[in-house]
Each structure stands twice: as structure tokens, then as C-alpha cells.
């Protein structure tokens, strides 16, 4: 069997709260014995409300945090072994929520070049990589622009290009669309799906927008630091009530189908798209 891109076993992360003198007063488990398996080349979504522990998990994937207990392997490498640190960071790119706070360069292409510079890529190859990555996210014609003049969606695509330029096997996106308008959101999602399809990059999308994950291969739902639900989008969205109990939502069409079903119509579970709902209604009519 191929190595899992991400494999977590009983992963625990505890934050220690301290009083004013620095004595520990309480520990809080942000991750509570989490098991996760993500296959290479897949598109996996992690859902959860704010404070559910999903961002803590993201930081573990890039070794910005280390496990308190349990083990996390990224591409077969144990994240608690500090010798693996740079290799893992290079292999798993991170894209964060706030587009302004992750762009380091004052020119688009210089920002994209920042990562390759850090890992010691030769100059000529940096240029090649910068060009390829900007093309991959559709931002090549903005290469000499200042990031400040770009829209939110464009900035986020530059951030993605900055990660792509490091040629990672896996990209973790921590609520990349939370601060964007609907058009920006679409741009970013289209870009990420394309990277997954065309370049085979494993995508781990952390979000609380349900509409963004209907195309994912697999979904994990987190609450209070634990994985509380997992499955394909269809499996997850057929459990409307449990999702609501975890402060989550379902896409509008799924909700409508669910309510119609409860009102007595004989519809299948987990309807995700308008086409599916129409088809199901047509069958009923005959």
C-alpha cells in the first residue's frame, strides 16, 4: 500500500493556560485523540465551527505545532522528529485565512519566489518555478503588480502560487475563503481543484462553508478537538441533524431536500445538487 499523505494516530494537542506568574492552571485539549488518514492525490475537507480544533490540526500538518501525545506522519515522516522539520514543511504548503498577512513580497513575483529562495533553489530555476506557479493559478499577468492593489481572491491565489512554487506534495488551506466575497471564493476553489486534478497535489481544505466541500473526496467533521463525523460528502450531508448539532450547516439544496423528505416526500438521502433534486422529484411524479 502506498504511504498515506497524512496519517494521525491518537493525536493530542494540549494548550496550557497559565496564571499571571506563569504557573499552569489548566490544560485544554485542542486536539483530542484524533485519527486521520489522507491518501495521496485526494481532495479532503475538514469541517468544523470556529474553535473546533481544525486550525490546530492544520498547524500540526506543517509542524508549526508538535503533538503533545500520539503520532502524526506526513508523507511517512514523523512530525515529532525535528530532523524531518524542513522536509515536511517543504512537502506540505500552507495557505492561511488572511491574504494580507501571508504575502511577504511587495511585488507578486518576488513573493512567489520567497519560498524557493528559502530552500536554496538556484536562481534560474526560481524564475522558472515562479512563472509556472503563477500560470497555474492564473495570475501570470499580474507578476509585476503590488499585492496591495489586488482583490482578495487574487491575493489568495498569489499565496497559493507562493506555496506551489515550493513544489509540495500536499497543500493545506486553513479557511482560505473566510475573508473573501463570493467571486473571490469561487476563484480560489477553482484554482485549488485544478491543482488537485492537473498536478495531482493532495488538497486539505479546512472551511466552514458547506457549498465548498460538496466536490471533496472525503470529509472529516471536527468538534471540541475530536473527529465526530467522517465520510463522503453524500454520507455527511445526509445527516442533517447531526451536522446541526455540531454547529454546522448543510448546503441550501440539501436542506430543502431534507425538509421535503421530512414532510413526507419519498426522496433519497444526501442530495447535493439541484440536478439530483430535480431528478428525484421527476421520479416521484411518474
Amino acid at each position, binding site marked *: 500500500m502506498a504511504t498515506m499523505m497524512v496519517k494521525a494516530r491518537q493525536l493530542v494537542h494540549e494548550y496550557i493556560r497559565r496564571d499571571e506568574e506563569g504557573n499552569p492552571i489548566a490544560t485544554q485539549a485542542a486536539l483530542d485523540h484524533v485519527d486521520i488518514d489522507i491518501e495521496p492525490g485526494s481532495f479532503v475537507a475538514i469541517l468544523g465551527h470556529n474553535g473546533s480544533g481544525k486550525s490546530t490540526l492544520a*498547524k500540526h500538518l*506543517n509542524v*508549526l505545532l508538535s503533538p503533545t501525545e500520539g503520532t502524526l506522519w506526513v508523507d511517512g515522516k514523523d512530525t515529532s522528529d525535528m530532523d524531518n522539520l*524542513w522536509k515536511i*514543511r*517543504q512537502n506540505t*504548503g*500552507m495557505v*492561511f485565512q*488572511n491574504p*494580507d*498577512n*501571508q*504575502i*511577504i*513580497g*511587495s*511585488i507578486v*513575483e*518576488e513573493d512567489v*519566489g*520567497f*519560498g*524557493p*529562495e*528559502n*530552500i*536554496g*533553489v*538556484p*536562481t534560474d530555476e*526560481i*524564475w522558472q518555478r*515562479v512563472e509556472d506557479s503563477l500560470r497555474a493559478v492564473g495570475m501570470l499577468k499580474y507578476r*509585476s*503588480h*503590488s499585492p*496591495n492593489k489586488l482583490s482578495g481572491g487574487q491575493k489568495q491565489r498569489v499565496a497559493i502560487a*507562493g*506555496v506551489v512554487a*515550493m513544489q509540495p506534495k500536499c497543500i493545506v488551506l486553513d479557511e482560505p475563503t473566510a475573508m473573501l466575497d463570493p467571486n473571490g471564493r469561487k476563484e480560489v476553489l477553482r484554482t485549488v481543484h485544478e491543482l488537485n486534478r492537473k498536478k495531482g497535489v493532495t488538497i486539505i481544505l479546512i472551511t466552514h462553508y458547506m457549498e465548498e466541500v460538496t466536490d471533496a473526496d472525503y470529509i472529516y467533521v471536527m468538534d471540541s478537538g475530536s473527529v465526530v463525523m467522517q465520510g463522503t460528502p453524500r454520507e455527511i450531508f445526509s445527516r442533517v441533524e447531526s451536522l446541526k448539532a455540531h454547529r454546522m450547516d448543510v448546503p441550501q439544496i440539501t436542506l430543502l431536500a431534507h425538509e421535503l423528505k421530512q414532510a413526507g416526500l419519498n426522496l433519497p438521502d444526501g442530495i447535493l445538487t439541484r440536478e439530483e433534486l430535480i431528478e428525484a422529484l421527476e421520479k416521484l411524479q411518474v
Partner: protein
Amino acid sequence: MLRDITIGQYYPTGSVIHRMDPRVKLFGTLVFLISVFAYKGIVGFAIVTLFLAALISISKVPFRYMIKGLRAIMILMLITALFNLFLTPGEVLIQVWKLKITKEGVMSAIRMAIRLTYLILGTSLMTLTTTPNQLTDGLEKALKPLAKIHVPVHEISMMMSIALRFIPILIEETDKIMKAQMARGASFDEGNIIKKAKSLIPLLVPLFVSAFRRANDLAMAMEARCYCGGDGRTKMKPLRYQSLDYQAYAVLILYLALLLALRVVL
């Protein structure tokens, strides 16, 4: 308002000046600053003015855009000019009560205003034509010898380039917070100086909080992209002198020599 500050902003036009090595531009700025304070007489003034005008026109940065940067420091200029106007002893032109305006005062006020204006135009020309990253790369390379005596040259230059990148963002943020507090009935221009200072708290606290949050985010983003200091880093745009740069050095040295010679002669 605050957005009019053009210092630290890059204005891409792809001109010859934009393409020059940042070290040349740093040296050029230094030369120009010296010349602004060293010129003598109307001929010297003319040369400095011509030189500046030539640079601006070569840079293709619209003059109107450069002027915008001056507006923000108008007050500073006015104060300096007033000090000069009233406090320079000499031949009295007008006297109102105890305040004397002297002929020398008028002259030195004008000179001071011109010098300050040129100074700002000269330095903003550098920041307008050089990306902050190039600028700090230039500084880093120019100051490299200092690294031998354990001056953290790379860290300093990285800090500078980040600071420059975030200036426009923080300015915009200041604007936003001011408006948000004004919507809650705050006013920033009423009362005496103590009251005014106090009214800044609702602006400054959120601004600091946000700056720290951004710094935290940025540090994490940099780490995630494998940043670990200057060792082992390669450069996307390594600095290498082109023939253009040597020509520019020659022009700069000629210009400075000419001005200094004029000073001796006149």
C-alpha cells in the same frame, strides 16, 4: 488624507531608473542629498533642479503622483519655514510687535523649503522606482562587510522590507478604525492637547492589537514557507552590476564633482 503618503510606495513604469541596481540608487540618493545641502548660488541651484527634473522625467513616474507625497509633510515644512522666517537675524523688512521678518529670514525660509522639498522628492524617487525588496537587498549587500563584526545585516534588511510592505496596509487600517470609532461618536480633533491625546487611545489600542496579530500571522506564514534566516538562501534577483549601472555611477560622480567644484569656485 493618510492615503496620500507616497513614501515607501512602489510605482512600476519599467524605466531605466527602475532597472538600475538598487546599490546605485542608494548611492545616488546619498549623492543627491549631499548635493541638496552643498549647492551654492543660483547656478548650483539650477544644476540640482535640472538634475532632479531629469531624473523624474526619466523615471516616468507622474509628477502629480510625486507631489501627493509632499502634501502629507506640508505642516513640517511650514513650521521649519516659519522658524527660519522669524528667527533669522538681519536686515528687518517688516516688524509686527516683537516679531521681525528679515530679508535673510525670507531667503533662508525659501532655501529651507526648497531643500526639504527636494529632499523628499529625491528620496521618494528612490522608493517609487525600487521595490522594497530590491532596496533591502541593496542595503544588505552594501552593508555585508558589517556582518563580519556580527551586525545582523540580513535580519535588519528583512525587517525593513516587511515594515515597508505593511505601511500601506496599516495606513488603510488606521483610516478604517478611525471611521469605526467616529461612528461611535468619537472625535479626533476636539479639545485641548491632553483631550486630543486621550482621544487617540481608541485608535491606537486596536491598531497595536492588529499589528501584533498581523506580525504573528506573518511569522507563521514565513516559517511555513521554510524561512529560517539568511543562511543557505538563494536569491531570485541576485544583484549584479550591468553596464547601465557603471554609467550611472559615472554620471553621479560627475554631478557631485561639478557641484563641489562650483562651491569652491564661487
